[in-house]
């Protein structure tokens, strides 16, 4: 079964991005959570050739604006 190692770089705010393994190829429009914030993927590129069962991708994403609900949880704004 293939694994996808993804480098997420955030644009539009000062955030270090992240590296995560997924069980599927990342796609444009996908929402991803990196530690405490949620982002939307804008662009996906393969950055290294696949090796063994691993595929290597880079995704550019931007923050999804959130509001804090009355119970203190983050919710995506509409």
């Amino acid at each position: 079964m293939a694994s996808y190692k993804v480098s997420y770089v955030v644009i539009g705010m000062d955030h270090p991005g992240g590296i995560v393994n997924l069980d599927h190829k990342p796609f444009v429009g996908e929402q991803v959570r990196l530690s405490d914030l949620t982002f939307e993927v804008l662009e996906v590129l393969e950055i290294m050739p696949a090796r063994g069962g691993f595929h290597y991708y880079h995704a550019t994403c931007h923050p999804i604006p959130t509001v804090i609900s009355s119970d203190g949880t983050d919710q995506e704004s509409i």
Partner: protein
Amino acid sequence: MDLKDFLRKVELFDGLTEAELEKVAAICQQRRFHRGDILTKQGTPGEELFIVTKGFVEVFLEAPQRVVVNLGAGQIVGEMALVDQGLSSATVRAVEEPTLTQVIRFEQLERLFQQDTSIGFKIIRNIAADLSFKLRHRNLSER
């Protein structure tokens, strides 16, 4: 999920046979961290390799404090100190509640490398690939 099933999905162990994975699994220990707990401290000797199994850790540099990357499931921490024997290059802190890891002590891993050079070759090659990926991530972050 069975530990071997998890290890099979970690790039660090790509290419290992079932028997080799068994040997690695035998020296892994699960360790649970709470949000804010420190895994490694910048400037201190590294003694353990961490594999994130659940949650996130952030890698940050001290003085001035700056987070350089967040690492999620399947990512490794402590590999630089394993390779160059130097002090930890950054502080690593758990940022999700809970954050789960598998931990391998350097001395146990090095003993395994000496006993089975095939495992040693594959894991060191995979660490090189991981360092390359992290460098590419940093380069792309600075575009």
